[in-house]
């Protein structure tokens, strides 16, 4: 191919410009490094924040050697699982937000807004309050997963393909309201007087006093979900050009759909099953990181996972510092940050929506 442009723009085709993609890649690596470092620092910080006053060196000693009976219990059985779950759930929400946005080609797609976390909550509520999960522990993540799959499929049937942002949000609102109502109904019908008070946990989420049991229960489902979503990179890049072009460039839409739906449902389902519905992380994190990675959907996957982990760890530290005695729900904080952000995003994209 030789140039046949109507007006040759001198200088613009100079080969020195060839260096630019590597500068883009260098910036991507820098973003990854900064995010990894902040996740590590926040993870460590999370281990040292809590209502029990344990000295810094005692904490480290207790964590690493198991010495100091009470301190070791606190570090290993309470703070470590909390920090691990924070990182895992944050990564899940960030990654699934980025993947859903890429797959639906819409910056407003997010597991919480699409009703995926709400429906997963409902599944988890059914598993716990009917006593099913006491007999068969895997019922908890499995029912949460089933709820999440149902939500993604309903939203996609209503708004996938050629639906605009407005249809997407409306479908998500319908699904999440229904899921929230069913969750409240199931809890109110429980004969246990405490059950009704736990609606807040399922709608807003929390990491308080979760244990290694929860980590082990959620981890396999999250890992499967992450693997499925991480494999979407190339297809999501091509989907930038639209579904037809993506298909003509080798993307098998049915496989991509299965991967996106199951990956989101598996990881978000497991996250919700152990920590309730934590909203807006999947919306805010990819949006902040997008300009830093040149908006390339494949590069947004890993960075959003790291960004989500950092955000949840930071929020969970903040929850413990702001109101140590009040057991403030994690979802309260993410919503206070996320909801105004969502409004601003709707305001910004409304011309495209209507």
């Amino acid at each position, binding site marked *: 191919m030789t140039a046949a442009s*109507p007006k040759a723009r001198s200088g613009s085709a100079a080969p020195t410009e060839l260096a630019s*993609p590597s500068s883009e890649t260098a910036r991507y690596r820098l973003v990854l490094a900064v995010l990894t470092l902040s996740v590590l620092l926040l993870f460590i910080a999370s281990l040292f924040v809590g209502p029990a006053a344990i000295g810094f060196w005692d904490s480290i000693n207790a964590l690493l050697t198991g010495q100091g009976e009470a301190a070791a219990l606190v570090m290993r059985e309470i703070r470590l699982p909390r920090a691990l779950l924070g990182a895992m759930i944050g990564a899940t929400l960030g990654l699934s937000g980025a993947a859903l946005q890429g797959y639906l080609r819409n910056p407003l797609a997010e597991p919480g807004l699409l009703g995926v976390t709400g429906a997963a909550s409902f599944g988890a509520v059914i598993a716990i309050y009917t006593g099913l999960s006491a007999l068969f522990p895997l019922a908890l993540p499995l029912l949460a997963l089933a709820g999440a799959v149902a939500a993604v499929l309903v939203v996609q049937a209503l708004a996938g393909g050629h639906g605009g942002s407005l249809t997407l949000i409306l479908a998500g609102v319908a699904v999440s309201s229904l899921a929230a109502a069913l969750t409240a109904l199931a809890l109110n019908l429980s004969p246990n007087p405490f059950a009704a008070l736990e609606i807040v946990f399922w709608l807003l989420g929390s990491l308080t006093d979760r244990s290694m049991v929860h980590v082990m229960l959620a981890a396999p489902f999250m890992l499967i979900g992450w693997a499925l979503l991480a494999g979407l990179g190339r297809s999501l890049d091509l989907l930038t050009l639209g579904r037809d072009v993506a298909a003509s460039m080798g993307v*098998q839409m049915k496989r991509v759909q299965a991967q996106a739906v199951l990956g989101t449902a598996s990881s978000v389902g497991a996250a919700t099953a152990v920590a309730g519905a934590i909203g807006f992380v999947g919306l805010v994190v990819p949006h902040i990181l997008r300009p830093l990675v040149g908006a390339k959907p494949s590069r947004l996957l890993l960075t959003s996972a790291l960004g989500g982990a950092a955000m949840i760890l930071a929020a969970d530290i903040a929850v413990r510092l702001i109101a140590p005695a009040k057991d403030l729900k994690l979802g309260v904080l993410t919503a206070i940050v996320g909801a105004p952000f969502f409004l601003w995003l709707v305001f910004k994209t409304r011309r495209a929506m209507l």
Partner: protein
Amino acid sequence: MTLLHVRNLCGGFAGQDIVQDASFDLAMGEFVGLIGPNGAGKSTLLRAVLGLTPCRGTVCFGEDDAKRLSRSALSRRVAYVPQERDVAWAVPVEMLVGLGRIPHRPVFSAETVSDRAMVECAMAVMDVIHLRHRHATELSGGERARVLIARALAQDTPLLFADEPTAGLDPAHQIALMETFARLASEGRGVLACLHDLWLAARWCSRIIVIDGGKMIADGTPAEVLTFDRLAAVYGIKAHVGEVDGGLSVLPTALSGMRHDPGGSVQVNWKA
């Protein structure tokens, strides 16, 4: 050598055939213009050949039946530029054009030097090098159209399908694009483009297929196909057909009244 072989292709949407019984071949070196009025089925024909819409009939790429080609194998045979120029994300232009190289790379492998060269070349051909750092979503319609065609050129396939590629381009870029397509064909590729600009089709296409009401009603060289009577019958227009500067020129001048209706269902009386 035949690059594309289509026989008795019917299809469109489930339960409704927009395209009826289309049969044609496309050989190396041909630049075929697909013309016809709005809603004639030009876009649907392209999508049916690409397997993007349900259809019946035979489609072969070279010797291979399309049904037996995987999506990724197909993506190395034909590149497609649809009418919609919607880009979902604010991706820099050169990254967008670089997407064209993905079908040639194994999974998880990085861009090679030859990939880079191909992208640079495609951007140079479509005159978008100066836009390389701009976001694809911020470009004007014509600029974005050129970027998207550059993406298809970077895909470097024997066949190129383009749906109304000249819409929204200024005359200089329209002519440049037609020359590029003609040159690609002369280098041994095949180009199939839906066109509305009859003067562009007349001058640069090597062959023209006319489609109306879902049926192919003419297939031949521009001089054979673009006659006064046929344009009146298909489009309901009066057109000046003649030779200007050593090439065929078609200049629509007025509506001609009653339009011939091939399907028996549409009757348009422009003057009524």
